[in-house]
């Protein structure tokens, strides 16, 4: 009835709001690119762009998973250590497999399979402890963060686990090769992003995540299996970590306790820069992708110039993140705020 009657006037308002919110991170990214180009034209060279995109794939893929966890009101601090752990186990398994069955593509496939299983399993543990154990996600994943990292250190005897070079030669192309001039990791990233976007915006699962994150009671009263959906978000996160690991391992062929340090912070930052709310209830996979690109671009730009003291890299990074988010939220949203609240 009255809804349809007013549809016409309503639409522009809504689209405007949505545009600003999605456009915010994009604008920040474009500004960064212009800045990068003006500091050093090499920034926009094909080689550098390929590097940048490939690099952002790790954090990006993990952050897509984190978008679901955070949307459903959770948090996962363990992703960095989980990546190190999965990478380490993958290497051990592949090295072991070589001894048993020699080197072939199957060794790598076996390794990737195990990585997926491990990632899903690790995610499931996080989810299980949070939902069934009723322990805060922050504590659970802080705990597993320590556990996974310790395990890598332990298995690596404090050092580095390195993939046998025979297997590496087979596996290397997964990171270094391109398809249609776009590096394989970027393809994987694109795939994960698209699937993630569809999952979030076009399936019941995404709706459920948002519902749970915005009000768990309502979700429960609406016949949503809250614990199950929440567990799934962690499993999904684990899956994303293992995908990121699968394209990470062929890069350097090694894993150590230094692998993936602080990735959790980067992933969460990418998610939030992208416009998802830390309190849950609202997720933007597209924004997350851009958030990951922004973070990677900042590091890249800092490496392309020497006008700033190296010691201040962190400060510049911090300032850019804050300013980027300010420009997209504080300023642009301010006029609408009153009406919204």
């Amino acid at each position, binding site marked *: *009835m009255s*809804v349809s009657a007013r*549809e016409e006037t309503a639409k522009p*308002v809504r689209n405007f709001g949505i545009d600003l919110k999605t456009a915010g991170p994009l604008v920040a990214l474009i500004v960064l690119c212009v800045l990068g180009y003006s500091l050093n034209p090499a920034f926009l060279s094909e080689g550098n762009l390929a590097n940048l995109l490939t690099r952002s794939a790790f954090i990006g893929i993990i952050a897509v998973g984190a978008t679901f966890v955070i949307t459903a009101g959770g948090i996962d601090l363990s992703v960095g250590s989980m990546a190190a752990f999965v990478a380490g186990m993958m290497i051990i398994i592949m090295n072991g497999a070589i001894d048993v069955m020699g080197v072939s593509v199957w060794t790598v496939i076996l390794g990737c399979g195990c990585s997926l299983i491990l990632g899903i399993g690790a995610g499931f543990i996080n989810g299980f402890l949070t939902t069934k154990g009723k322990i805060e996600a922050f504590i659970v994943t802080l705990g597993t963060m320590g556990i996974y990292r310790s395990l890598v250190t332990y298995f690596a005897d404090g050092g580095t686990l390195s993939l046998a070079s025979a297997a590496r030669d087979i596996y290397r192309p997964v990171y270094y090769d391109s398809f249609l001039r776009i590096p394989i990791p970027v393809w994987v990233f694109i795939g994960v992003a698209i699937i993630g976007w569809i999952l979030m915006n076009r*399936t*019941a699962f995404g709706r459920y995540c948002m519902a749970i994150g915005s009000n768990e009671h309502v979700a*429960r009263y*609406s016949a*949503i299996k809250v614990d199950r959906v929440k567990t799934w978000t962690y499993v999904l996160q684990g899956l994303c970590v293992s995908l990121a690991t699968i394209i990470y391992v062929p890069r350097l062929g090694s894993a150590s306790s230094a692998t993936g340090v602080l990735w959790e912070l980067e992933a969460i930052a990418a998610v939030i820069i992208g416009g998802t709310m830390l309190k849950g*209830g609202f997720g933007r996979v597209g924004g997350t992708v851009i958030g990951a690109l922004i973070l990677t671009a900042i590091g890249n730009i800092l490496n392309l110039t020497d006008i700033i003291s190296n010691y201040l890299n962190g400060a510049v990074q911090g300032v850019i993140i804050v300013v980027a988010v300010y420009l997209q939220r504080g300023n642009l949203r301010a006029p609408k705020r009153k009406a919204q609240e």
Partner: protein
Amino acid sequence: MQPADTIGGPVILSAERISKSFGEVPVLFSIDFDIRQGECHAIIGENGAGKSTLIKILSGLEQPTSGHVCLDGQRVELPPHGEAEKLGIVVIHQELNLAEHLTVADSIFLGRELKSHGFLKLKEMREAARHILDTLHVDIDPDARIHSLSVADKQMVEVAKAISRDARVLIMDEPTAVLSQAETENFFEQVDRLKAKGVSIIFISHKLDEVMRLADRVTVLRDGQHIATVGTEALTPDSIAQMMVGRELSNLYPPKHEPDVDAPVVLKVENLSGESIENVSFTLKRGEIVGFAGLIGSGRTAVAETIVGLQHRDSGKVELNGEPVHFTEVSQSIARGLAYMTKDRKGRGLLLNTGLRPNLTLLTLKKHSRGLFINEASEDEALARAVRRFDIRARDASVKVGQLSGGNQQKLMLGKMMETEPDIIIIDEPTRGIDVGTKQQIYHIIAALAAEGKSIIVISSEMPEIIGLSHRVVVMREGRVAGVIEGQEITEAEIMRYAAGLKQDGDHERISA
């Protein structure tokens, strides 16, 4: 419109030619309104007429697009951060406005704590809170946390909070919507007392008898327009209703179709016990409407929630179409055609930060999915259907549910439940906050559903609703079934006798029949 100058002293608070738009959407059109000292002025109107918006402007929570607010004849700017309260304008909002983690005493004194040397006078505040709650005749522990209270208790805390402030103007937006009769009575006592003290009261309610009982003057709004301001003595409930809806309202309650005596029993509950209920037994036949009456906290909600699997069942049996069932999740009961609509629409029913469509289909997303994907076209259809069927009025399709008027939220929630196409429906407070016109619609919908062969349980604190709709009434008291009343015996007096514990049902045969 006729001026009713008979009551009260000078005008204290007035709105002059107030208009309000949200974005492009106008909600109020040049409204004039005033309240005098010691008077009770009721605002009535259909859902979405703009009542809540008007009082939000009067209390500074929203700024008018044009026009202004005058206090004691002076134009005032009321900033949105609760400053109106310092000027003596106190509001009980339609949306419960309590912080869930605070205790009752903390909530009552939030923002104006009693202090000495910077330290809170905890004991005094607790005592004072207890005292205020006592005057309202409610037994709520001042140390209880808000989230552990029932909706009605929360509302009483709101009332306590409001009357404890030094109000010159007390504005109340549907304060009685979640209260039972007894509580409403206690509440009215306090309102009378305040009026006697010279406090001016603005009162919004869809319960016309309450309006008649309390108000000195009545202002009617329709679609954001001022229709009339009239002295109450010149009115009858019927004439008010007519002014509100703009048409004659006859037969609020549809005629009862007596269900087939041989109709099969579709739901049989035996000796159900659990959190706050004990040995509850009753049956529901096909095509029957069973009312659940009782005082607040008598366990009606608990029975419903235990049946559908929202609460833990300690013992007892539930049979659905002759088959024993034990639901532990709502999805299971939905799958078997048993739907439950909660009474707590803000906390349990709707996602306030989300739009209409996702809320409507949240319970039935599977139905609107093609394979993995949500079919938005089918969702849109569902929304259009629900909007038509339940007359949901949103000024703008993109509004968040939290921005809908209270009554329209309620209708949306009804729509959400009906989306599941249930055979058995348990509705907890079906018309909470709904205007008379729509109430009538909803009653007819319920009756029509029963006539179609669906079975319905109506849990309600509104006695007329129970009496007007039910074929049979189960009266609960302190977690037990106090009695079951049928046919001609369904009268207010009889129900109250059971509910208050004056009468106890001896013959349990009838309950489990």
